[in-house]
């Protein structure tokens, strides 16, 4: 018998005696329970507001408390203006990016050398970039998160290796909560999931030294979200 079969046999053997149901340790064990519907959790998790405007404001508020920079602009021209300002302020020499409508337009506006991560690339070159510019799958109002996948955001490293991660998003990508984000992932990818999916919630951080918050532990020190 293989190790797998042995472990599974032990699991089945162990489960022949029923365990008390959560919350009633002192009453009789109950037969198999059905899972509670997953969308039940919506009524218990932090509230997100009814309207789009509420959710936009919530995202803004969450981003601020996470120390992410959120730029809400009306038109693309303003978005590329924000990018130009970041480039000049931080003295960018080179950026990483992937192929996409928004990222291509951003790279054109910046006029800097670009390290592309659509095809196998040199890790050292990406590491020396001043910023990584990506698109995303969604913004999540409830938590202030950016949802990225290896398909929407240029692979696994682009959004974590350079010291500044810039996300380009459209207003209609704003979702109310995590449940909606998982529903979106299923709708979009269920027949063919990308190998990497991540919820990015603020710039990289640590509190491992005396619980003092430090940004940029291993990932980006800065996270800028430009939404138009």
């Amino acid at each position, binding site marked *: 018998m293989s190790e797998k079969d042995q472990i599974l046999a032990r699991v089945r053997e162990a489960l022949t005696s029923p365990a008390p149901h959560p919350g009633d340790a002192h009453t009789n064990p109950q037969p198999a329970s059905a899972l509670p519907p997953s*969308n039940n959790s919506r009524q218990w998790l932090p509230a997100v507001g009814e309207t789009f405007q509420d959710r936009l404001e919530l995202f803004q508020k969450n981003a601020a408390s996470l120390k992410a920079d959120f730029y809400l602009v009306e038109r693309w021209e303003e978005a590329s203006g924000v990018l130009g300002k970041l480039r000049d302020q931080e003295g960018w020499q080179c950026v990483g990016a992937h192929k996409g409508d928004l990222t291509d337009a951003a790279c054109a506006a910046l006029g800097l050398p670009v390290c592309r991560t659509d095809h196998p690339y040199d890790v050292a070159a990406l590491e020396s970039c001043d910023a990584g510019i990506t698109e995303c799958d969604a913004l999540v109002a409830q938590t202030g998160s950016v949802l990225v996948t290896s398909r929407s955001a240029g692979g696994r490293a682009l959004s974590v290796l350079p010291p500044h991660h810039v996300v380009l998003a459209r207003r209609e990508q704003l979702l109310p909560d995590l449940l909606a984000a998982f529903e979106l992932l299923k709708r979009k990818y269920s027949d063919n999931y990308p190998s990497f999916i991540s919820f990015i919630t603020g710039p990289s951080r640590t509190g491992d030294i005396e619980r003092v918050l430090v940004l940029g532990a291993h*990932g980006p020190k800065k996270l800028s979200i430009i939404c138009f």
Partner: protein
Amino acid sequence: MNTFAAQFREQSLRLTRDLRHRLLIQNALGKYETQRDHRKAAFQDWQSARQAAAEIKWEAINHLDVHLQDFVSRIEARGTVVHWASTAAQARDIIIGIVRDSKARSIIKSKAMTSEEIHLNEALEEAGFEVVESDLGEFIVQLRKEAPYHIVFPAMHLTRGDISELFTRELGSAPTQNPEDLTMIARRVLRQKYINADVGLTGANFPIAETGMISITENEGNARLTAALPKVMISLLGIEKVLPRLEDLALFLPLLATAGTGQPLTCYNSLYGGPRRADESDGPEEFHVVLLDNHRTELLADAEQRDALHCIRCGACLNVCPIFRNVGGHTYGTTYSGPIGSVITPHLRGLQDWKHLSYSSSLCGASTETCPVKINLHHHLLQNRRNASRQKPSRIEKFAFRTYAAIVNRPGLYHLVKKAGRVLQKLHPLVRGTRADPAYGWTKTRDLPPIARQTFKEYWKDRNIK
């Protein structure tokens, strides 16, 4: 007393008196408590969220065979190699085998308590490989050649001064009192390690049965780099961690962050479903998942304590435990410390050797109250006490209770003993607090109240006469 118990007792005595240690722990956990309460208050209904999480975990654990097989068949379908290990030794051998096959020399690791459980680092180093912990706290304790102090805050017992000294000694950096500078020193050192590493090793928080992915929760980005840069990725996880549905994460991720660190969500919550795909530009060429039993099925067979396998390793029970807060994490001498460690260690490493941990509890119930998946922790400690004494009864206790029963069943004798006690207690001050004191075990740290001059029975009798 066995050596583990003796060591626990000796270290507890030392650390409860260590004011510097107490101050550090109070500071760190005080900050945690404020943040956690703030985030809990943002939930519309925290208690119902806990109940739902407990029910989902109940389903996952009580149909573990089904969910495990679903998880494995789906993640294998995307080209992941899944390995099964019944014991710690098997898991170590499997991982060393993968590392050897890939002709690797250096390994970068993100935080994984299961790897501490099987003492993986020592085994890899013995086999001739370089292993570097990349989580800042783990990196610090690795440099100090120590075990993590806490399952979520590994370096909670150190000051910035300690860490500066350590970095100066081990890394040759300039001394600094600034946590940000210290973090940047580690960042610089570890960046190179990521780029040069051949193998990335991670743990996992939640394997998902429905989609065949593993979810990894972190704040620093070290797990993401570990899963992005090396050409081989290995994830070691306990078989009990599986969740049935992808959407369950919508509840578990905020719950884990709130209970674990007092955050609404940790910085990175990533799902990995396989190695790099043909249409992808980076990520590992090989992805191995190692599923570890290591006595988990034995705990599973104990229906009464099966819910201990619901644990999501948030560390909340450690943070609120009055024992943990006084004796600290290393005193336990176990991979998992605090209340959850005291419950599961006897199952993982032997009841008789570790039963003393069941008594390192004030039975206040704070851990049960705080556990986000409602594990009945303090009752399980009582059950471990019962099981231990049932398995190996104490002769002294047996004798004591038999004598007691013999006395209280004979009213005349009982009366006599009470009278004798009253007289003998007058002599007690002569020996109190010395080894000659028959009640030394009690009186060295506690008072013995005086026996009343009159018993209730005597009082009642007198009252009736009048």
